[in-house]
């Protein structure tokens, strides 16, 4: 039966070329735009080099302290002391990466300015994040313990500072008037990974901000990596249990609120969540609503065209009805046809998005980022196709099934 519908759908496709073009154009472009957006969101939130352990990690991006009597609050990343003294003593995390948020600095080579974003890290940082080293290796406990002035730099910085085809390891790079010895060169990281992006990584013991301060707030964020994904809920619980035990708080505050969140939640909580709500649900809801809203106009357009096409087929419908086909059979047939149609448009859409994504990647629109059409994107576009096909097929099919046999046959 399905095979029959397929043959009919192809025959209909060939009938009115202009209408076919309009429908396919609408379907494929709508899906292209949806897919590129999905690929971008996918790039931003799913694990990728070097943050491939995102699914077994939790992030502590900020602490919020409140003075409940007078109603002020202060929100800021944590201090090194906080992570070392409290978070590092937790049992479930396998490793805790502690690092500062990146901060800009300049260096000059032959009077050319180079922007270098600095990040100070601990030794476990290099185990939680799996950077690819094109040269050398990371610094470890020994270098950190000795406060050695060593640096891991990105390939881009290496190229700008030392040149393309030279080894950088063992050489010195200068910024803020200090010479750092390069120990490793890592592949570039896009700025869409704000927690780990930097051009130059340095041991936290050489950081200029005092890491010894025993205030709770500072400039550090923590990535807590569990041994396995199944340990993550336990880790979140342990962190929650830890928070009330933190004392003393900074002067003037009496309540501390902080969460160890999965990656996406660290952003959604700040944008649309609260202390008790991670905001992920609202985020998904808003994104889905926007996608539906965007699909509204192409869907209406497709419905309009489908109705015109159906009316053209009234003789066929009349004959089938006269020979005893029930309304539901006809509705079913038409919806299947329309879904087949949408999938042909979808296939063109996949091709177009592939071209669009390659263009975006090669134009370096988002520096160092590589958008990908992976299974996630394809699955989502498959469902978008299905929803689109059903939405635009149901109403015309219903209209068709209501046609009277006599009228339908007479119309031709």
């Amino acid at each position, binding site marked *: 039966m399905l095979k029959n519908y397929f043959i009919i759908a192809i025959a209909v496709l060939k009938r009115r070329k202009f209408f076919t073009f309009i429908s396919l154009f609408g379907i494929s472009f709508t899906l292209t735009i949806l897919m590129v957006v999905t690929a971008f969101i996918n790039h931003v939130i799913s694990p990728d080099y070097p943050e491939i352990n995102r699914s077994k990690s939790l992030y502590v991006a900020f602490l919020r302290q409140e003075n409940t009597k007078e109603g002020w609050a202060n929100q800021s990343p944590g201090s090194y002391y906080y992570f070392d003294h409290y978070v590092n003593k937790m049992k479930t995390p396998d490793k805790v990466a502690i690092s500062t948020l990146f901060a*800009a600095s300049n260096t000059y080579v032959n009077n050319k300015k180079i922007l270098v974003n600095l990040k100070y890290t601990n030794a476990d940082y290099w185990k939680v994040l799996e950077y690819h080293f094109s040269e050398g290796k990371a610094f470890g406990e020994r270098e950190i313990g000795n406060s050695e002035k060593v640096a891991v730099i990105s390939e881009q910085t290496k190229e700008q500072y030392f040149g393309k085809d030279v080894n950088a390891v063992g050489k010195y790079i200068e910024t803020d008037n200090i010479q750092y010895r390069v120990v490793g060169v890592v592949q570039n990281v896009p700025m869409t990974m704000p927690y780990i992006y930097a051009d130059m990584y340095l041991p936290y013991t050489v950081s200029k901000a005092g890491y010894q301060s025993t205030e709770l707030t500072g400039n550090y964020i923590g990535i807590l990596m569990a041994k396995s994904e199944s340990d993550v809920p336990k880790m979140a619980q342990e962190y929650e249990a830890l928070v009330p035990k933190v004392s003393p708080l900074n002067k003037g505050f009496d309540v501390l609120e902080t969460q160890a969140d999965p990656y996406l939640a660290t952003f959604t909580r700040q944008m649309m969540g609260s202390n008790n709500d991670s905001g992920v649900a609202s985020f998904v809801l808003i994104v889905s609503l926007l996608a539906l809203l965007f699909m509204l106009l192409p869907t209406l357009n497709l419905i309009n065209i489908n109705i015109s096409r159906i009316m053209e087929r009234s003789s066929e419908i009349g004959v089938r009805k006269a020979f005893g086909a029930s309304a539901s059979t006809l509705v079913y047939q038409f919806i299947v046809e329309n879904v087949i149609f949408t999938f042909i448009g979808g296939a063109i859409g996949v091709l177009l998005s592939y071209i669009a994504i390659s263009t975006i990647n090669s134009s370096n629109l988002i520096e160092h980022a590589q958008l990908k059409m992976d299974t996630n994107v394809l699955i989502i576009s498959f469902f978008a196709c299905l929803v689109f096909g059903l939405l635009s097929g149901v109403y015309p099919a219903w209209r068709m099934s209501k046609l009277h046999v006599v009228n339908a046959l007479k119309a031709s």
Partner: protein
Amino acid sequence: MLTHLFKLIWNKKKQNFLMITEMFVSFLVIFAVFSMLVYKYNNYKVPVGFDFKDVWVVNYNDAIKPVDADSVALYMNNIRQSLKSLPGVVDVSFASGNVPFSFNTNNTELNNNGKKYRSNIFTVEANYASLFKNKMIEGRWYDKSDIPAKPFPIVINQTLKREIFGNENALGKTIIQDKEKLKIIGVVADMKDRGEYETPEAGYFNLADTGAYKWNSTILVRVQPDVDAAFEAKLFKTLNNVIYNANIEIEHFDDKEERKNKISLVPLIILVVVAGFLIINVALGLFGVLWYNISKRRGEIGLRRAIGASGNMIAKQLIAEALILSTLSLLLGSFFAIQFPLMNVFDMPSQVYYTAMLLAIIFIYLLVLVCALYPGKQAAAIMPAVALHED
């Protein structure tokens, strides 16, 4: 004639209902896009209000400064003198971190006779206005005598003046910020400090006292227009020698502005591209449906021709039908669109919405007209004998 057209439309209400819905949604989309475009264009037309060419900003953090206020003042003065002694530096001024085109904001609440206003607060030095070449609208900028004065003298910008005082005189009035009395001594022209396509926000300037130096991490430097590439490296070295132990970054204001402009323009470009695609889609759809309708109405058109209607009249009738349909959807759309200025959603001036509505209406009419022209012409070419014979 018109009632007859309505009757024709009514007879095919199911099909036409869908067409109206489609045009209605298109109108809303176009209205949204035009609102954005008109808003950004209006902002673009407003003068920038200050001159940031050849002005650089130095951000430094984690500097270890002396503890007591007098030593800090000495320390900062040392920075100023060392920078000023560099050939190529015109002027140096310390400012709070919320400099133009930065991502920092610093807000406060002002109180005027019980009414509350939100305002940006910029902490600057007396030479800020000459460094940025700000224009005074009324009154005067600070001079050295202002530092110990009570009540605290402030200079407000045009937007803040408009929000609090409207057309009244603002000079000499006092407003209250956190129990502190502030006396307005001048009104300065708005600085478009959030980018060329954004509206300036309400704000006021207060004069930095010695206490502010402790927390300062931003230095504004105006340089000669003809400084060479080596100059910046030299400036950086000098800074490194006077601000010990800090991370230092030099940025140029024209780069910062460009980055801010990009942030306002990129979403706009994406919006226009997506809307453009939707409109092409709708246009093709409308065109197809109108064309198809004509081929279905050959009998009717043939009959009209036979009883004496000219080809032109047929074309006009079909175009008029399409335009009536769009008028219906535009009426519906305008009803929803007019809620935006009436209920003041999104805080944009209502003139923006009205202009956008007008443009969107014209756009939809043009779109429908273009889509109906060719099918109308086709219909005009129908020969009565042929069409009637088919039936």
